[in-house]
Protein backbone atom coordinates (compact mmCIF):
# COMPACT_ATOMS: atom_id res chain seq x y z
CA UNK A 1 0.00 0.00 0.00
CA UNK A 2 2.93 2.34 -0.02
CA UNK A 3 3.67 2.68 -3.69
CA UNK A 4 1.74 5.62 -5.02
CA UNK A 5 3.81 6.14 -8.10
CA UNK A 6 2.09 6.22 -11.43
CA UNK A 7 5.13 4.90 -13.18
CA UNK A 8 5.32 1.29 -14.24
CA UNK A 9 5.55 -0.70 -11.06
CA UNK A 10 8.78 -2.61 -11.48
CA UNK A 11 8.79 -6.33 -10.90
CA UNK A 12 10.73 -6.28 -7.70
CA UNK A 13 13.05 -9.22 -7.93
CA UNK A 14 13.86 -10.71 -4.57
CA UNK A 15 17.07 -12.33 -5.60
CA UNK A 16 19.98 -10.84 -3.81
CA UNK A 17 22.72 -13.39 -4.41
CA UNK A 18 22.79 -12.71 -8.09
CA UNK A 19 26.04 -10.83 -8.73
CA UNK A 20 24.33 -8.59 -11.25
CA UNK A 21 20.66 -8.64 -10.37
CA UNK A 22 18.14 -6.86 -12.53
CA UNK A 23 17.56 -3.52 -10.94
CA UNK A 24 14.83 -1.00 -11.24
CA UNK A 25 15.76 2.64 -11.40
CA UNK A 26 14.46 5.05 -8.78
CA UNK A 27 14.31 7.75 -11.43
CA UNK A 28 14.74 8.07 -15.12
CA UNK A 29 14.70 10.79 -17.73
CA UNK A 30 15.24 10.86 -21.43
CA UNK A 31 18.02 12.98 -22.85
CA UNK A 32 17.87 14.20 -26.40
CA UNK A 33 21.37 15.04 -27.61
CA UNK A 34 20.03 17.14 -30.47
CA UNK A 35 18.40 19.60 -28.09
CA UNK A 36 20.39 22.39 -26.49
CA UNK A 37 19.94 21.11 -22.92
CA UNK A 38 23.19 19.74 -21.57
CA UNK A 39 23.78 16.13 -20.56
CA UNK A 40 25.12 17.29 -17.21
CA UNK A 41 21.87 19.08 -16.52
CA UNK A 42 19.79 16.08 -17.56
CA UNK A 43 21.75 13.78 -15.26
CA UNK A 44 21.50 16.11 -12.27
CA UNK A 45 17.76 16.62 -12.84
CA UNK A 46 17.33 12.85 -12.83
CA UNK A 47 19.26 12.60 -9.57
CA UNK A 48 17.04 15.35 -8.17
CA UNK A 49 14.01 13.25 -9.14
CA UNK A 50 15.52 10.30 -7.32
CA UNK A 51 16.12 12.44 -4.22
CA UNK A 52 12.79 14.21 -4.61
CA UNK A 53 14.42 17.62 -4.27
CA UNK A 54 14.89 20.76 -6.35
CA UNK A 55 17.75 20.24 -8.84
CA UNK A 56 19.61 23.15 -7.24
CA UNK A 57 19.69 21.18 -4.01
CA UNK A 58 21.82 18.45 -5.59
CA UNK A 59 24.93 20.14 -4.31
CA UNK A 60 26.94 17.61 -2.38
CA UNK A 61 29.55 17.48 -5.07
CA UNK A 62 29.84 18.79 -8.63
CA UNK A 63 29.24 16.02 -11.15
CA UNK A 64 32.36 17.31 -12.90
CA UNK A 65 34.47 15.83 -10.13
CA UNK A 66 33.02 12.33 -10.60
CA UNK A 67 32.85 11.81 -14.31
CA UNK A 68 33.93 13.41 -17.54
CA UNK A 69 30.48 14.14 -18.91
CA UNK A 70 31.88 15.49 -22.16
CA UNK A 71 33.56 12.13 -22.74
CA UNK A 72 30.31 10.30 -21.95
CA UNK A 73 28.51 12.55 -24.39
CA UNK A 74 31.07 11.86 -27.09
CA UNK A 75 31.18 8.11 -26.48
CA UNK A 76 27.41 7.68 -26.56
CA UNK A 77 25.99 10.44 -28.68
CA UNK A 78 28.67 11.61 -31.06
CA UNK A 79 27.19 12.16 -34.49
CA UNK A 80 30.49 11.89 -36.22
CA UNK A 81 30.71 8.90 -38.52
CA UNK A 82 32.62 6.14 -36.85
CA UNK A 83 34.25 3.12 -38.30
CA UNK A 84 36.22 1.32 -35.70
CA UNK A 85 35.59 3.43 -32.66
CA UNK A 86 34.52 1.69 -29.53
CA UNK A 87 30.81 2.23 -29.13
CA UNK A 88 29.48 1.34 -25.70
CA UNK A 89 25.73 0.81 -25.28
CA UNK A 90 25.80 2.47 -21.91
CA UNK A 91 28.14 4.04 -19.40
CA UNK A 92 27.71 3.68 -15.66
CA UNK A 93 29.28 5.59 -12.86
CA UNK A 94 28.74 6.36 -9.22
CA UNK A 95 27.61 9.75 -8.04
CA UNK A 96 27.12 10.38 -4.34
CA UNK A 97 24.97 7.49 -3.10
CA UNK A 98 23.64 6.70 -6.54
CA UNK A 99 24.58 4.61 -9.49
CA UNK A 100 23.96 6.40 -12.78
CA UNK A 101 23.53 4.66 -16.11
CA UNK A 102 23.46 6.67 -19.33
CA UNK A 103 22.33 4.66 -22.33
CA UNK A 104 22.94 5.17 -26.01
CA UNK A 105 19.18 5.40 -26.54
CA UNK A 106 19.19 8.54 -24.40
CA UNK A 107 17.74 7.10 -21.21
CA UNK A 108 19.37 8.20 -17.99
CA UNK A 109 18.67 5.77 -15.16
CA UNK A 110 19.41 6.41 -11.51
CA UNK A 111 19.76 3.46 -9.17
CA UNK A 112 20.07 3.30 -5.46
CA UNK A 113 22.97 1.30 -4.14
CA UNK A 114 21.99 -2.36 -4.08
CA UNK A 115 23.40 -3.10 -0.64
CA UNK A 116 21.83 -3.15 2.79
CA UNK A 117 19.64 -0.10 2.41
CA UNK A 118 16.26 -1.81 2.69
CA UNK A 119 16.31 -5.56 3.04
CA UNK A 120 12.87 -6.84 2.18
Amino acid sequence: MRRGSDEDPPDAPDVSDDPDPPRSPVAQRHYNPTEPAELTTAIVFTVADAMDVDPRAVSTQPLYECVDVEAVETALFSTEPVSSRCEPDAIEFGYTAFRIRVQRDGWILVFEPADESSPE
Partner: protein
Amino acid sequence: MTGDRDDGEVTAAAGELPDQAVLSPAVIELDHIYEVLSHPRRRYLCYALLEDAVWSLEDLAEAIAAWEHTDGPEAPTDQRRSAVYVSLYHAHVPKLVEEDVLLFDESTETVAPGENAHQVLLALRGISTGLDLREGAGPSSETDAARE
Protein backbone atom coordinates in the same frame (compact mmCIF):
# COMPACT_ATOMS: atom_id res chain seq x y z
CA MET B 1 65.16 46.50 -21.39
CA THR B 2 61.94 46.99 -23.24
CA GLY B 3 59.95 44.25 -21.52
CA ASP B 4 57.10 44.70 -19.09
CA ARG B 5 54.31 45.27 -21.46
CA ASP B 6 51.36 43.63 -19.84
CA ASP B 7 48.45 45.24 -21.57
CA GLY B 8 48.60 42.79 -24.46
CA GLU B 9 49.01 45.50 -27.04
CA VAL B 10 51.68 44.43 -29.44
CA THR B 11 52.46 47.53 -31.36
CA ALA B 12 54.64 45.97 -33.96
CA ALA B 13 56.21 48.52 -36.23
CA ALA B 14 56.32 47.81 -39.94
CA GLY B 15 57.28 44.20 -40.44
CA GLU B 16 58.93 43.96 -37.09
CA LEU B 17 58.18 40.76 -35.22
CA PRO B 18 57.89 40.95 -31.49
CA ASP B 19 60.82 39.26 -29.88
CA GLN B 20 60.43 36.56 -27.32
CA ALA B 21 60.77 38.87 -24.40
CA VAL B 22 57.54 40.56 -25.42
CA LEU B 23 55.54 37.41 -26.08
CA SER B 24 54.36 36.09 -22.77
CA PRO B 25 54.02 32.35 -22.32
CA ALA B 26 50.29 32.96 -22.01
CA VAL B 27 50.17 33.99 -25.65
CA ILE B 28 51.87 30.78 -26.68
CA GLU B 29 49.62 28.63 -24.55
CA LEU B 30 46.34 29.42 -26.18
CA ASP B 31 44.89 25.94 -25.81
CA HIS B 32 43.22 26.51 -22.53
CA ILE B 33 41.78 29.81 -23.71
CA TYR B 34 40.10 28.00 -26.60
CA GLU B 35 39.01 25.24 -24.27
CA VAL B 36 37.49 27.72 -21.85
CA LEU B 37 35.77 29.71 -24.56
CA SER B 38 34.63 26.71 -26.60
CA HIS B 39 31.27 26.44 -24.90
CA PRO B 40 28.68 29.20 -25.33
CA ARG B 41 27.66 29.08 -21.70
CA ARG B 42 31.25 29.56 -20.60
CA ARG B 43 31.53 32.53 -22.93
CA TYR B 44 28.47 34.03 -21.28
CA LEU B 45 30.03 33.34 -17.92
CA CYS B 46 33.17 35.18 -18.96
CA TYR B 47 31.12 38.07 -20.34
CA ALA B 48 29.55 38.27 -16.93
CA LEU B 49 33.01 38.61 -15.41
CA LEU B 50 33.73 41.53 -17.73
CA GLU B 51 30.70 43.24 -16.24
CA ASP B 52 31.25 42.41 -12.60
CA ALA B 53 34.06 40.66 -10.87
CA VAL B 54 32.11 38.84 -8.19
CA TRP B 55 28.87 36.97 -8.72
CA SER B 56 26.69 34.74 -6.67
CA LEU B 57 25.93 31.56 -8.55
CA GLU B 58 22.25 32.36 -8.30
CA ASP B 59 22.65 35.79 -9.94
CA LEU B 60 24.98 34.38 -12.54
CA ALA B 61 22.44 31.72 -13.51
CA GLU B 62 19.75 34.36 -13.67
CA ALA B 63 21.85 36.63 -15.91
CA ILE B 64 22.99 33.86 -18.24
CA ALA B 65 19.47 32.43 -18.53
CA ALA B 66 18.28 35.91 -19.53
CA TRP B 67 21.06 36.34 -22.10
CA GLU B 68 20.37 32.93 -23.59
CA HIS B 69 16.67 33.53 -23.67
CA THR B 70 16.26 35.34 -26.95
CA ASP B 71 12.91 34.01 -28.13
CA GLY B 72 10.49 36.20 -26.26
CA PRO B 73 10.13 39.29 -24.12
CA GLU B 74 9.06 37.41 -21.01
CA ALA B 75 11.58 36.32 -18.42
CA PRO B 76 13.03 32.83 -18.61
CA THR B 77 11.12 30.26 -16.60
CA ASP B 78 12.32 29.03 -13.27
CA GLN B 79 13.00 25.70 -14.97
CA ARG B 80 15.42 27.45 -17.36
CA ARG B 81 17.20 29.27 -14.56
CA SER B 82 17.42 26.04 -12.67
CA ALA B 83 18.93 24.27 -15.68
CA VAL B 84 21.53 27.02 -16.09
CA TYR B 85 22.34 26.97 -12.38
CA VAL B 86 22.83 23.21 -12.44
CA SER B 87 25.08 23.30 -15.49
CA LEU B 88 27.16 26.07 -13.93
CA TYR B 89 27.56 24.30 -10.60
CA HIS B 90 28.11 20.80 -11.97
CA ALA B 91 30.08 21.48 -15.15
CA HIS B 92 31.25 24.93 -16.14
CA VAL B 93 32.32 26.51 -12.87
CA PRO B 94 34.43 23.50 -11.79
CA LYS B 95 35.98 23.42 -15.24
CA LEU B 96 36.92 27.09 -15.06
CA VAL B 97 38.23 26.59 -11.54
CA GLU B 98 40.41 23.78 -12.84
CA GLU B 99 41.74 26.15 -15.51
CA ASP B 100 42.42 28.79 -12.85
CA VAL B 101 40.04 31.15 -14.56
CA LEU B 102 37.63 31.23 -11.64
CA LEU B 103 37.71 31.04 -7.90
CA PHE B 104 34.66 29.47 -6.35
CA ASP B 105 33.76 29.97 -2.74
CA GLU B 106 31.71 26.93 -1.84
CA SER B 107 30.34 28.36 1.40
CA THR B 108 28.98 31.57 -0.11
CA GLU B 109 28.47 30.09 -3.60
CA THR B 110 30.18 33.04 -5.23
CA VAL B 111 32.59 33.13 -8.13
CA ALA B 112 35.44 35.56 -8.67
CA PRO B 113 38.19 35.85 -11.29
CA GLY B 114 41.12 33.49 -10.89
CA GLU B 115 44.73 33.79 -11.94
CA ASN B 116 44.10 33.13 -15.64
CA ALA B 117 40.95 35.21 -15.91
CA HIS B 118 42.76 38.25 -17.22
CA GLN B 119 44.11 36.65 -20.38
CA VAL B 120 40.87 34.81 -21.10
CA LEU B 121 38.89 38.01 -20.74
CA LEU B 122 41.40 39.80 -22.91
CA ALA B 123 40.94 37.18 -25.61
CA LEU B 124 37.18 37.31 -25.27
CA ARG B 125 37.22 41.07 -25.52
CA GLY B 126 39.36 40.86 -28.64
CA ILE B 127 37.03 38.35 -30.28
CA SER B 128 33.97 40.36 -29.26
CA THR B 129 35.41 43.52 -30.75
CA GLY B 130 36.16 41.71 -33.97
CA LEU B 131 32.69 40.23 -34.16
CA ASP B 132 30.78 43.26 -32.96
CA LEU B 133 29.64 41.47 -29.81
CA ARG B 134 27.22 39.18 -31.55
CA GLU B 135 27.35 36.16 -29.31
CA GLY B 136 25.40 33.20 -30.51
CA ALA B 137 24.93 34.44 -34.04
CA GLY B 138 26.16 31.54 -36.08
CA PRO B 139 29.47 29.79 -35.90
CA SER B 140 32.09 32.06 -34.55
CA SER B 141 34.79 32.66 -37.06
CA GLU B 142 38.03 32.51 -35.21
CA THR B 143 39.50 35.58 -36.70
CA ASP B 144 42.28 37.55 -35.21
CA ALA B 145 40.83 40.40 -33.34
CA ALA B 146 40.43 42.76 -36.22
CA ARG B 147 42.13 45.99 -35.69
CA GLU B 148 42.23 48.95 -37.94
